[in-house]
């Protein structure tokens, strides 16, 4: 286990050290101590290492992550795992707004709640939230899966493209062009896999699926009220 203490080392030193790890590194376990809400912790990683952040983080923790597993034992500030490419990011606490924004791959697990715009403009990332999510989540979501074990706030999936949304609890309202859709066997399989990988005990059959009505894909003056 390698340790980096942000009480004594700089953010630059920490990120440079983690970014220097290569595919074949033997230093696969890293502990980040005293994060104290610092921004941009463990960003731009690109190696199959496991990083545990002992505490809470500020903005953009694990931004643009590739391959690495980043585990935050506290809560995460805005934009956690933004534009993630691959790997896994786990937040034990809550996540602030824009969690997983524009993510292209990998798995983001939020054990608590996620604030507004969770999964905004998601492009392939899988996000599993054990609690609730805030308004405008998955806005303009292009691809990937957003699984919410609790409730969803207003305007879920507004202007959605091809991202799939699964909610177990209530949905306060759906955004423009987002509709409820049939849960087919392949969707239950997706849910089963994601819940298992997230370590969350929930039955896939309890979720409802939401997706794009695809009515706003090409501009039509008859839909002008929706724009």
């Amino acid at each position, binding site marked *: 286990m390698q340790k980096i203490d942000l009480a004594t080392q700089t*953010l*630059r030193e920490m*990120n*440079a050290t983690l*970014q220097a790890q290569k595919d074949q590194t033997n230093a696969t376990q890293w502990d980040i101590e005293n994060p104290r809400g610092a*921004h*941009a912790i463990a*960003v*731009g990683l*690109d190696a199959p290492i496991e990083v545990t952040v002992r505490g809470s983080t*500020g*903005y*953009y923790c694990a*931004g*643009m992550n*590739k391959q690495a597993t980043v585990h935050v034992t506290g809560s995460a500030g*805005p*934009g956690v795992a*933004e*534009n993630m*490419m691959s790997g896994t990011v786990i937040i034990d606490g809550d996540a602030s707004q*824009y969690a997983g*924004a*524009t993510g*292209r791959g990998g798995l983001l697990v939020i054990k608590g709640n996620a604030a507004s*715009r969770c999964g*905004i*403009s998601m*492009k*392939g990332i899988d996000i599993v939230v054990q609690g609730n999510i805030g308004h405008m989540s998955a*806005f*303009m979501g*292009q*691809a990937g899966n957003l699984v919410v074990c609790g409730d969803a706030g207003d305007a879920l999936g507004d*202007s959605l*493209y*091809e991202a799939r949304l699964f909610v177990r609890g209530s949905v306060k309202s759906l955004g423009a062009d987002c509709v409820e859709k049939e849960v087919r066997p392949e969707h239950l399989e997706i849910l089963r896999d994601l819940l298992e990988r997230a370590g969350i005990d929930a039955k896939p059959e309890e979720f409802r699926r939401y997706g794009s009505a695809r009515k706003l*894909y*090409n*501009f039509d*003056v008859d839909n*002008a009220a929706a724009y």
Partner: protein
Amino acid sequence: MNEHDKRIPQTVPIQSATFSNPINAEIRRAAATGIYDIRGGGAKRKVPHFDDLLFLGASISRYPLEGYREKCDTSVTLGTRFAKNPIKLDIPITIAGMSFGALSAQAKEALGRGASAAGTSTTTGDGGMTEEERGHSKTLVYQYLPSRYGMNPDDLRRADAIEIVVGQGAKPGGGGMLLGQKISDRVAEMRTLPKGIDQRSACRHPDWTGPDDLEIKILELREITGWRVPIYVKVGGTRPYYDTALAVKAGADVVVLDGMQGGTAATQDVFIENVGLPTLACIRPAVRALQDLGMHREVQLIVSGGIRTGADVAKAMALGADAVAIGTAALIALGDNDPKWEAEYQKLGTTTGAYDDWHEGRDPAGITTQDPELAARLDPVEAGRRLRNYLKVMTLEAQTIARACGHNHLHNLEPEDLCALTMEAAAMAQIPLAGTDWYPGKPGTGY
């Protein structure tokens, strides 16, 4: 008509200045289609511009430099504030961001070839970085846009600079739209969206709002790229003093300021023509912000929007810019709106010089299209050569003027080298009206 009526003078038909033929045509078009007009390019309306300024040249108080003999440096370094590897360019004329998707792969390659041959940089656009432009661009600026189409850390690290796009002059406050007819398989794959659908680019970034967030976003990008490359912040010309000051506060190495004549691939005509400031009105407030913060020349200012000639370059720099960027002019140099395609422009209902339906993907010149047959019309080697020639000519023109004003570097041009031809230009550029020492709003004059 009887003899009496024939003797009465007839009134001449008078066209309304308010309801002009172009306005009436647009009313009829809107009534027929139910959709606003979308087009490419920048503002076409006449606004005060660099044409409304003149250089004074040398006199008894200033002696000129000998043309062709005495050196007039044109180099510029961008990103000296924080970046480990600032960009060093031979000329202060850069190529503005234009996307693959809006432009063909051949056009992007040609831009890279031309810019590299002239010793300057080119810039990606919405849609990500293509191998064609990375491979042919010695210095490539990677745009970080609200849509984040194609964004990934590998390309971020392959870039020579990063440009965070907050806005652009053609549509400050607006997002983008790439219509379905230009969404080829390759464009769709790069943007992670289905083929053939209209692709919207958001008007603001998905994971930050405001200058305090921007500062943290810049920190993240610097951490991901090891603080190696300069980070630009691009804004549309709206509130140039405050936007420049806030960009500096947020940690930008370079501020890119784009006036309303700056082009776009596709935006509503009403937006292009009615939102934003003319480029001429943007420069002095931005420079004043840098000066007030003690950052003029330390944070570099790139000005764009209607730059066409070496005279425009020299005027922008005399007003305080460190460099300029060109977009529309570069496309024209490649072959856009060339008279040789007039017959085809006529078939599209337009004419040479007026073709602006870049969003439809039917560009006869093969530049603003994804149609393979049309795109193949553009030879990237030859088009790149034309762009290089044009950039060289602009540079020579700017040097000619600078020498005439007695300067051995384009950066030594200054406002005192200029006069204004109109009251409007004098007020916007804060340059004395020709033959006077006064401009509207000059401190201490009471006007």
